[in-house]
């Protein structure tokens, strides 16, 4: 059973902590669709965020495939963003859809999948990958911070990336 299937089951069983986990797990994703996909900012993004999680709360029981939670939330967020934009511009929903939205959402899905896989890595791998790829730190800075010889950082990053790849695609290698 996937993490999402388990989470949906707990939410539907009335577990309040599960709802908090669901919101925490998907809040960045929903915000990213609003801001990067539809360029909604501030109060507009906040309105969509509230609307999406209200709908999730109301309609979670109608989700047929629990493993499809992420695309379901993505679809609901797209709809809410379009409604917001259409209401603001008084145009048809089809006229306010950004042309590159599918590409942007595919990139967000990839980023979200990598983020989820990163969370499954051992802490030292998370740390070293985050420092190199997200914070752009040099091998020496990473080595000094983690008390590891800087000459071994590149190999360590490679090993951690191989583990990340294995998590993302267990059939690979």
């Amino acid at each position, binding site marked *: 059973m996937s993490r999402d299937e388990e989470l949906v089951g707990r939410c539907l069983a009335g577990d309040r902590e599960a709802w908090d986990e669901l919101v925490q797990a998907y809040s960045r994703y929903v915000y990213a669709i609003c801001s990067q996909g539809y360029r909604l900012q501030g109060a507009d993004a906040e309105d969509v965020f509230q609307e999406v999680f209200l709908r999730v709360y109301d309609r979670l029981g109608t989700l047929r495939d629990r493993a499809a939670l992420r695309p379901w939330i993505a679809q609901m967020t797209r709809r809410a963003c379009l409604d917001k934009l259409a209401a603001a511009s008084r145009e048809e929903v089809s006229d306010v859809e950004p042309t590159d939205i599918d590409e942007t959402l595919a990139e967000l899905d990839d980023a979200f999948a990598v983020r989820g896989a990163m969370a499954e890595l051992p802490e030292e791998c998370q740390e070293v990958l985050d420092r190199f790829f997200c914070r752009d730190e040099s091998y020496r800075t990473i080595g000094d911070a983690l008390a590891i010889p800087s000459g071994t950082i590149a190999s360590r990053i490679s090993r951690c990336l*191989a583990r990340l790849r294995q998590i993302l695609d267990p059939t690979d290698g």
Partner: protein
Amino acid sequence: MAAKNGAGSIAALTAAAAARLIADVARETSGWKGSAGVVAQATALAERCEALAVEDAEAFTAALDALTNNSPDLVDRMVTATAVPVEIAVVAADVAEAAVVVAERCDGLLRADAAGAAALAAGAASAAAHLVRANLTVTADDPRLKRAEIAVDDARYSASRALDSGT
């Protein structure tokens, strides 16, 4: 004024080219399970160098402009024009380090390319550090210069390891 490439941005582009080369060598090496990880790192380093090349050209041009026009912003612009070459030296040292990993594991036929990339990266680090040293706002005990010099030492050490690998 259009941004002008000086030695700093050329050093960054040299390091970027070296990083792209080691990514290619890693990609073309057969039977090396960890090659994808090195390709990812080398690609990230190349992108970092390319961004620094643009940043350096802009900082260099702004500093030249301030110097020519005796601008009150001169000191600020010189400080910015120093900060970028320091970063170029540091990233170039990382390119040289990544090149060592590739030189030690790649196909023998490609080893000279990996070693050459390390030497190019070390040269880029040296050039960038020289620009830091030559900046009028930098003194001999300046921590920015120290950081650049450490990067040059690291890069030279990596280049010597890469050039010696496989012998």
